[in-house]
């Protein structure tokens, strides 16, 4: 293994652990576009979400999963999963797109946990050569001038490798709160100051609570809504204000068993999250690109229990008013036995990182060599389509 999650977190976090050591400044970021990165944890079955009904080998491989329901036609070849009908207006408006047959460079061992670490680190998979210890979103921030603690937000409980690193990144969960008097808050900061990790977290918590209080409850504290909706609302609230980048996770894609039922909840969460972002962002949605990516795809053929096992090539979801949507990107490799990766998985024909890079290039104007060398070392952008308007 080139690295472990622990290596990355311990070596990359010293600065990120203390993002609020300097007071929060409210200077606007150097651009106006917004990027939302959603990590789909558990390996989303891209073949079920964006169904290649036009491929002659698809139907036979997915007998029980398709079960007579075709889904929503996208382009005559691909159809969207039946449960995602709520997103079809976005598709028709050109605000929803997909990339098929993409993957990270991770191969063969098909571990969720390594797969997700590699997806978030954004590095290659050459054993022993990786010296990178932070997440790609953080490395992107490191290359930009004028970054503040509010520029990028990781939303939800728990840390994310994707945003770990030297650049400041805020993190918060929408239901978090802190009712301590100002005097007690000062004492708490003092108690924590000898320990950089704790000090960063305490300063961060108090800084965020105070800025939310100043907004008079415009965000946060909304009980009773579904957790993923609360997260999307909170992210949208930050993006309407000073933040330009937000990231969160949607879990539950590991459908080894009875996938037809198992997909309902995560698909609902994905659909709700995208629609909540659109509704809550208002006019800002037009300047927003959402990229949703997963650690790998799943086997072409159903397994013995109505599900699918860990595979290789998968799908990426694109949304937002800033994307060139209404189309399925990617080179379709075909599903004939000989076209599959190791005879079982969709063959990846493009690097999922290249599309994430093109989103950042289109949104933020990042130079190609920075993307290819720093943000995603080793990725090739030649020939990758422009996905941002």
């Amino acid at each position: 293994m080139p690295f472990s999650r622990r290596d990355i977190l311990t070596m990359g976090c010293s600065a990120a652990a203390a993002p609020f050591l300097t007071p929060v400044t409210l200077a606007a970021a150097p651009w106006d576009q917004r990027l939302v990165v959603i990590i789909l944890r558990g390996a989303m079955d891209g073949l079920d979400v964006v169904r290649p009904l036009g491929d002659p080998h698809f139907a036979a491989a997915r007998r029980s999963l398709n079960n007579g329901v075709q889904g929503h036609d996208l382009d005559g070849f691909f159809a969207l999963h039946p449960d995602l009908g709520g997103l079809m207006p976005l598709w028709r408006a050109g605000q929803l797109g997909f990339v098929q047959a993409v993957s990270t460079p991770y191969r063969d061992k098909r571990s969720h946990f390594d797969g997700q670490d590699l997806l978030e680190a954004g590095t290659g998979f050459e054993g022993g050569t990786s010296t990178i210890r932070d997440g790609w979103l953080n490395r992107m921030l490191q290359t930009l001038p004028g970054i503040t603690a509010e520029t990028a937000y990781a939303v939800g409980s728990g840390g994310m490798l994707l945003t770990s690193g030297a650049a400041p990144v805020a993190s918060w969960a929408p239901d978090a709160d802190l009712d301590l008097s100002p005097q007690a808050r000062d004492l708490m900061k003092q108690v924590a100051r000898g320990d950089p990790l704790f000090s960063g977290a305490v300063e961060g918590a108090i800084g965020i609570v105070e800025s939310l209080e100043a907004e008079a409850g415009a965000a946060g504290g909304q009980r009773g809504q579904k957790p993923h909706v609360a997260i999307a609302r909170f992210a949208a609230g930050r993006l309407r204000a000073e933040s330009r980048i937000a990231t969160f996770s949607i879990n539950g894609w590991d459908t080894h068993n009875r996938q037809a039922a198992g997909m309902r909840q995560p698909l609902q969460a994905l659909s709700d999250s995208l629609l909540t972002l659109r509704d809550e962002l208002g006019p800002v949605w037009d300047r927003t690109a959402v990229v949703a990516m997963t650690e790998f795809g799943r086997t072409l053929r159903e397994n013995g229990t109505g599900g699918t096992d860990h595979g290789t090539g998968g799908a990426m979801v694109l949304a937002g008013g800033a994307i060139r949507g209404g189309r399925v990107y990617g080179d379709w490799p075909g599903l004939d036995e000989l076209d599959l990766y190791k005879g079982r998985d969709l063959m990846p024909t493009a690097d999922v990182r290249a599309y994430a890079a093109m989103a950042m290039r289109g949104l933020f104007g990042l130079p190609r060599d920075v993307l290819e060398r720093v943000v995603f070392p080793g990725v090739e952008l030649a020939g990758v389509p422009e996905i941002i308007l």
Partner: protein
Amino acid sequence: MPFDPRISAIRFGYGLAPSAAPPASAGAMLARLTGPDRMAQAMPIARFGDMLPRVAEFRALNRQRKAMGRDSPAQEAIKALRREMRGDRQNALVTNLYRAARAEDALRERLVRFWADHFTALGKNPILRALEFGYVEEAIRPNITGTFAGLLKAAVTHPMMLHYLDQARAVGPNAPEAKGTRGLNENLAREVLELHTLGVGAPYGQNDVRELAELFTGMTVNSEQVFNFYPRLAEPGAEEVLGQRYGGANPRLADIHDALDDLARHPATARHIASKLAVHFVADDPDAGLVDHIAAAYTQTGGDLMACYGALLDHPAAWAAEAQKARQPFDFVAASLRALDAPMPEGDKAPLRLFSRPMAEMGQPIEGPIGPDGWPEEAQYWITPQGMAARIQWAARAPSALMPDLPDPRAFAEAALGGMVPDDLRFAAAGAESRPVGVALVLASPAFQRR
């Protein structure tokens, strides 16, 4: 051996307690482990097997409802039973917290948590969710002082694990009763190799996963949630895992046990388990010598867990003065209860309000971790602004909800930290505007949250 009673309580237990003396020696800690499980007797939690009559009752009510429709009186009974099962789950969490808070033998409680996490198995429907704590009580808790192979077999073949990692419905594609409708599922086989035994860096491949998945077929769970090895659903013929062949024409459970025994004996497993113990107890990035020392004890004894714990406790790196780990939310809450000598709360809503909801906000909900790899170990995962806000919030509210008289914060700091109170904390504890705030500052301080 650089044994230190203060460190032993904090790093290998749930911290110092006003009511219990810290361990006197590593030998005494190990001796307690081999003695009777006093907390399980004093504060019982139903085992998986004990809960099966309830499962049968639930199924019978469901059948009645199906037969009679929605107006059936069974509908109300089902609702009541579900409510009761949810309540039992909350109560089991509270019982686990107070076992940890009150145990003399706190290392046992820590080890149960450690192994329950290593062998994470979660329910995917209401009935199975209600049985999660019973799985730990039955498959994990009684097996933490034997061999790793024994623990592995108990966990991997348990109905809870077979359901969680989808083995229960898998069948051999060429089994006599396969009927062509169901077949293999790789989930359990992959996680046994990757998470439970060898570790992901070990030299195994997709073919080993596949063959082990074939070998695992035949392990089923009947509708009463009882394990049953059913050879007519098993893939016939031998399977080759890591170059070793298992089974033959007549599938036997013993072949699966043989494969698990061999995986437990593998040098990669020794290193994987040694490293996990060192990471969990001592440091996110542990001393290599400590890992080697535990791995050597594992190998020399064929995976005797007491020998591994002994090796952990007799290595100097385990007693480093610096507390390098951050307590996970369960540990933080349990250690707080222990330091406060807090009474158990009363009222049906208390478990949710005082424990499971705040712990979810800290990042550790009762629903369990996201996947079978369990909870992350890294301090950076837990000590985020939102996680820290939740800890401070709990520390400010829960103690006064649990006990009418909070201790003097200055004395509390001294007692909870065994006299090692940093100056900043001593100053803050004395300067707090009220007792609850002073106690909260002690509990939320890095000095208390590190171990």
